[in-house]
Each structure stands twice: as structure tokens, then as C-alpha cells.
């Protein structure tokens, strides 16, 4: 790992260079909320935020993705689509970066998903440490911090006049080397400063989830009436899953006109009863209880069983935006406490 320094005054220069050669996506303020959009000049960015409402996973697992094109009907022909786009995501938070690493588990394996994996491969994640976590942030519950560089190619941390720059792999090195005149080597004092910034951010986080042994505990309480208690207030709006950075479920549908068409993949949510409805009318998850439980289990039991990692990064989006205050910190903590 390389430790470098980038003067804050040089950030625009750095960004301009990046934009010259690459598609750069960065946090932009639009209608009062932050979203990750392609920028054409550094001044469009807004770095004074905690997290975007719409997760940046959408840049890799697009909400609408064309799988391939075809001529519809009974005399069909198929045409592949190009997925070679290269891009840089600048200013992604460590939690969101971790979510992409978590998603990767689902998309590799026996059947490799070319759309996700190719985009993942072609994307450089330039992160920005989070210095002001909000009330529902709980990334520290998963042994991570708001300034962890583990899942990023490059991580910038604001340490006053400079950014402390951690370059974790070759992907990142390629970028910093091409602009080596902008970077200075970091001193021990800078590392200390970063640690301080990190500690300060960690201290702000005041909500914690007890995740110790949660997967095993969930094994024992599947039929517990506790789930009905939790799920009864759910209105099934699906916001939690749409905005969750680790939710990967999707629907595949054909769209066509008379002469052309495409098979399209779109995000879907397990909170909708239609999600599991069979054509025969039978629904294995007919009630809210089934659906809410499935969401929690998918994150805290199935995912750990299949991939050895909890599918939650503690970003708190689902808590922020749930219209009826179903609070995953509270749900999981309480699930750990109920008697089987």
C-alpha cells in the first residue's frame, strides 16, 4: 500500500486530469439530494455530504440493464450488447465500496454474471473517508470504519490542508502514477492525523447493532412470533430494498416494438407480493411476515451461509427512509435477544 499526500488545492487539477481521460462519476447535488453523476468539471462536485440516498451500486449494477437485443417473434435473431465501458467513481464512501465487494459474491460463482463483473473490473473506486456520519450510520458494527480503505482502490481522507491518500492496489497505482507530480509521500505525522480523523468519525457513530452469532441465532428462530411483530407495521413499500447497497435481486423482462426488442434486467424487491407469485396463483411468500423475514434472513443468515459475509454495510439508508420506522438495527439486535 502506498501512502501519499494530495494538497487540497491540487484536487481540482487531479480531477481535471481524471476527467480528461476517463468517465468520472462523482457526488453532485441535484434538487437537494446527492447523487453520483458523470461530471465534466471539478466544480460540479459536492463533497460536503454523508451519503447519497440513491446508492452508487447503481453505477455497476444498473437499475435498468439491457442484456441483449433481439428481433421479436417466432423468427428471432439475437444481438449481443457491448459492456466494455470504463469509469471512475470518485467520492464513494467506504461503506458503499464494501457493498460492491459484497455484491460481487452473488455475481461470481458457478455462473459468472458478465454485466456486473465486467463493469466492476472496469471501474476504479476512488473513495472519500466519511467525516460526518449521520444518526443511522452503523458501519462500525461490521468491523469497519468510516475511513477504511479495505474495499477501495484509492482512499482520500481529509486531514486539513491535504488529503491523505491510500493506494491499495495496482488499479489505484496506475492512476496516481500517471499524475505523480501532484502527490507527495506522506509522513508519519500525516498517518497520525488520518487516524485522528478516523477516530473522530468513529466516535460520532452512536448506534450499534449486535451482530455476534446472529446467523446461528436466526437458524433457531425462523418460526418465532417475533417476526409477525416486526412485520405487521410494514406497508411493503420496498424502499428499503431499492435503496439498499447490497440488495441484488432483479427482474428480467422483454421489451419490444414490432421490429426490435431487448431483454432488460431491472431491480426488483422481495417486498412485493408479485415477486414470488407463481403463474398458477400460488404464492410461497404471501404475507408481510414472510417477506420482511426473508429480507432480514437474506442479509444476516443466507448470505453468511453462502458467502461467509453479512450482506449489510451499515449505511442506514433503509432506516432513514422507512416510512413506518422498521429499524434494522433494532430488529437484528432484538432478534439476538429473543428466546428460541
Amino acid at each position: 500500500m502506498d501512502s501519499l499526500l494530495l494538497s487540497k488545492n491540487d484536487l481540482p487539477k487531479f480531477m481535471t486530469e481524471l476527467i480528461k481521460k476517463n468517465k468520472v462519476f462523482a457526488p453532485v447535488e441535484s434538487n437537494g439530494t446527492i447523487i453520483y453523476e458523470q461530471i465534466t468539471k471539478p466544480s460540479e462536485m459536492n463533497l460536503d455530504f454523508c451519503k447519497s440516498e440513491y446508492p452508487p451500486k447503481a453505477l455497476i449494477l444498473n437499475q435498468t440493464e439491457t442484456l441483449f437485443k433481439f428481433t421479436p417473434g417466432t423468427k428471432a435473431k439475437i444481438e449481443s450488447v457491448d459492456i466494455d465501458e470504463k469509469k471512475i467513481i470518485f467520492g464513494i464512501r467506504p461503506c458503499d465500496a464494501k457493498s460492491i465487494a459484497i455484491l460481487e459474491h452473488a455475481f461470481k460463482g458457478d455462473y459468472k454474471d458478465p454485466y456486473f463483473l465486467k463493469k466492476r473490473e472496469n471501474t476504479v473506486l476512488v473513495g472519500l473517508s466519511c467525516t460526518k456520519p449521520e444518526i443511522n450510520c452503523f458501519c462500525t458494527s461490521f468491523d469497519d470504519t468510516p475511513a477504511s480503505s479495505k474495499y477501495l482502490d484509492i482512499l482520500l481522507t481529509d486531514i486539513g490542508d491535504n488529503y491523505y491518500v491510500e493506494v491499495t492496489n495496482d488499479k489505484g497505482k496506475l492512476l496516481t502514477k500517471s499524475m505523480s507530480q501532484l502527490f507527495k509521500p506522506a509522513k508519519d505525522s500525516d498517518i497520525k492525523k488520518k487516524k485522528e480523523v478516523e477516530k473522530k468519525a468513529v466516535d460520532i457513530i452512536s448506534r450499534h447493532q449486535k451482530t455476534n452469532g446472529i446467523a446461528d441465532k436466526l437458524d433457531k428462530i425462523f418460526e418465532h412470533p417475533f417476526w409477525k411483530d416486526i412485520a405487521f407495521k410494514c406497508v411493503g413499500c420496498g424502499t428499503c430494498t431499492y435503496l439498499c447497497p447490497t440488495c441484488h435481486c432483479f427482474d428480467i423482462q422483454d421489451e419490444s416494438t414490432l421490429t426490435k426488442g431487448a431483454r432488460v434486467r431491472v431491480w426488483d424487491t422481495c417486498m412485493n407480493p408479485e415477486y414470488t407469485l407463481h403463474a398458477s396463483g400460488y404464492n410461497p411468500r404471501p404475507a408481510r411476515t414472510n417477506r420482511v423475514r426473508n429480507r432480514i434472513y437474506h442479509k444476516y443468515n443466507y448470505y453468511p451461509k453462502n458467502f461467509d459475509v453479512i450482506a449489510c454495510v451499515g449505511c442506514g439508508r433503509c432506516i432513514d427512509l422507512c416510512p413506518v420506522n422498521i429499524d434494522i438495527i433494532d430488529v437484528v439486535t432484538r432478534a439476538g435477544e429473543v428466546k428460541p
Partner: protein
Amino acid sequence: MVDNNQLREAVKKTISRDDVKYVVGYEKGTYGFQTTPCFAYKPEDADKFIFSPLCVHNLSVFPMLEEKPPLRKGEEPDKRKIGVVVKGCDSRAIVQILQEKGLDRDKVVIIGIPCTGVVDPKKLEKMFPGHIKNVEVKDDDDKFAVTVDGKTQKIQKSELIPDKCKTCEYPTPILYDILIGKEIKSNKNEDYKKVNEFEKKSLKDKWEYWEKQFDKCIRCYACRNACPLCYCKECMVDQLNPQWVRRSVNISENTAWNLLRAFHLAGRCIGCGQCERSCPMDIPLMELNKKIEKEIREMFEYEAGVNAEEKPLLAMFKPDDPEEFIL
């Protein structure tokens, strides 16, 4: 100001009845200023019930969310009633559902609360950000008393209430079995100021504004699912054959969805604001709903959710309905 003890007594009394399955009301949420729907199955459960200006949810959605699992042989359907705690605006949703025969009157017990306005959670969070514990909001005449960490601040209601409360004409529930406290008469008037203001814009400016808003939409359908009046068994956007609205997210499908959602609530929307509150992308859905509400008031002298005996707006007509637009 609602007396919580009086509310709890009423809930206790209701849930003690044999013919009541559960009562849905409000309790304190898990963090900050949040409140959350809560369910009482036995009299003790009533002790956690509260009502405060933080109780923004429209609970009349819950009777409509009841799942009706297929009955086994010889099994009797559960015919018990559901108790619902409602504010003035929420009660209109129930009235509207009754009018459409979506629900039987004898399936609900309505516990009415005369409401003097709730807070807009987004405005409150902006004014007092980042508080997790020890917060409270109380009603204090024309002010809200906001307590944070022991310090109480009085804030003019107009600064914190959502737009719907500013022009609320029905603070007291229209229909109720039990009323907590005294009836309140409204001296407010819906003047559709925002709508009138927006109408003056040119078509181009209007579309520019809405294009931006619809572009944000992620089509999670939270607006639909949270709405007490969106209770169709199969929503038109979930229909596959024919598929009217495609699932891909782009301005065309987003506009179609948002227009159709608004239209399907024409003469039915009672203005509770649940859709806008649930929207994760902050699309001002109520502006569309209010526009339609204004038009049907002007064109058909009709108001949704005030009279359960009336026929639904679009299922009836008057021979002299406006028709100047017809060739």
C-alpha cells in the same frame, strides 16, 4: 392536546371487546423523533400507545393490508373488527374506502383524534439534526414545544407543519366510534395557493419542472404501497398482459406511472400526504394530487372522503358537467 391516558383507556376498552382482533395506533419509535405504528392484541399492549404531533402516519392503510390466506376446510373466516386510531385526514381515507365499498363499516372500530397539526419530519430533522435520544414534541397552542436533551424550545407551528396541515379543513375525524377529547372546528381554508401559483407558468416551464421530478423516480412504487387508497388486487403496472407500463426506468415510463398514479386517485385522494412522505426520492407527489383535488372541486363540486353515502366521483355524472373542451 390529546390526553394519552384517555387514548389508552379507549384502546383498552376496544381491545377488550370480543369482536375486535387488534387495535393499531402509535408508539414511540426506535430513535430520534420517530414514531411507529403499533398493534394492541391485549389490553396491556395499550400502555405503549401515544399520540403526539410526531404521529404522521396514516394508519387507515392497515385494514387494507390485511392478508386473507385461503381457508382450510371447515375453517371459519376471522370476522373480527380492526381498531384504528385516526386523525382528521386519516378518517377521510376510511370514509373514502367505505364509499368505494373496499371495507365494511362493521369491520372497523374508529378511534378518532382531533388533530391540531402534525410536524413535517423532514423539516424537524433539518432544524434539529442528529438527535437519537431524549427528544419530544408537544402541542402548545399555536406552537410546538420541542424538547431536546432536556431543553425545551417553542417553535411556531407554521414553521414545522407540512403544507397539508396549513390548509386542513377537517381536523376532527369525520367518522368515529370513539372520540378522544373535544371536537375542533377548523377556521382554515384550502386556497390552493401553490397550485394556482404553478398554473401561471408556461407549458414549457411546467414540463421542465416535472421532467426533473419524474426523472428522479426510481419506480419503487412506495407511493402506491403506502397509500391507503391504492388497494387494487393487481395494480395496472404489475399487469403483464397487456403490459401498459414497462419496468425499465426512464423518463417515458416514469411519467406514465406518475400521471396514471395521480389519475387513479382523482376524486379519491384525501390529501394525507402519505405518498410524498414515503417517496425516497422526494418527488412532490402532493402537488399533482392537490391539482386534481382543486379541479374536481371546481368542475364537479366534489370532495373525496367526506360522505360515505355518496357515489365515487368517476362512477357518476351530472348531465351538465363541463364540456367546453368537447368538439
